[in-house]
């Protein structure tokens, strides 16, 4: 007689996970679109941080889906490669510090990410040969973009400081979090 196990196989992704991933990507994209007229002021950093804190490993799917949707909207460029390491790096750092629940900690972290975004994006230029590549080019490229990095860093700080507590409290009440 066959021994049938009553245990259900644990699925990697449930329907709920897939739905949550879709909703998270939609929230990030909608906020990005809404703020596109404000250069270097964005909510993507905020949502990557918050979603990583609440939904953890689902970000492994959220971030690539978000980037691929961006690739359908904007022409292919070096920015695509930058996105594929910059946003996962932020999610990884957030995951390491996931036990922290201080608005100041997350505001400072978000700000540091914004300030370092230009430096992170300059990295691929180091490996490009020719007049638009090399270490000197990458350095000059980063220096030229510093004013925008400062806008990015300050706006990330302010947005996190203002939004972290209300959004966190709201997220805690969501049935999908309580389950």
């Amino acid at each position, binding site marked *: 007689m066959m021994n049938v196990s009553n245990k259900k196989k644990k699925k990697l992704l449930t329907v709920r996970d897939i739905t949550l991933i879709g909703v998270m990507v939609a929230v990030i994209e909608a906020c990005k679109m809404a703020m596109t007229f404000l250069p270097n002021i964005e909510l993507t950093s905020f949502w990557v941080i918050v979603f990583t804190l609440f939904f953890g490993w689902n970000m492994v799917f959220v971030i690539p889906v978000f980037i691929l949707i961006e690739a359908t909207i904007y*022409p292919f460029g070096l920015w695509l490669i930058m996105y594929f390491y910059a946003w996962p790096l932020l999610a990884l750092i957030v995951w390491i510090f996931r036990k922290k629940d201080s608005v*100041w900690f997350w505001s*400072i972290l978000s700000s540091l990410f914004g300030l370092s975004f230009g430096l992170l994006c300059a990295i691929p230029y180091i490996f490009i040969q020719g*007049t638009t590549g090399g270490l000197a080019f990458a350095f000059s490229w980063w220096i030229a973009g510093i004013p925008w990095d*400062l806008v990015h860093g300050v706006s990330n700080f302010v947005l996190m400081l203002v939004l972290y507590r209300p959004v966190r409290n709201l997220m805690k009440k969501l049935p999908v979090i309580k389950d």
Partner: protein
Amino acid sequence: MTTENNKKKSGILKICLGLIALAAVIAVMVWAYNKFSEKPVEGSKAITIEVVGKEKEAAYELKTDAKYLAEAMDEAEGLTYEMEDGMILTVNGETADFSKDSSYWAIYVNGEYGMYGVNEQPVEDGDVFKFEYTVYVAE
């Protein structure tokens, strides 16, 4: 009660240290920008602006006291341009729209790829600026 107060003080101290560290990073970045970015030079300067478009080419030689390239372009007789969001969109009637066909106006300064937009690119005596209609091709 004392443990609670100590914890609170420790928390406030950490926040202060974090904010100081953040301010220090911002200060270093401001210093780096001021030290390493190109500075405008005042005085009468002889420059050349070349335009290599998809269909036509042109060159303008002029003497200018402009600090930045955009001001010099305004003085170049016969040169017309339009900008959008701080970027050059049209030069001498030819439009390069990246969102439509991955085309853009590349800026070269003395043969090297320019780091700055026309509003931030300083002008020095003897500079040769080139605007080249370019189509981005993924490698």
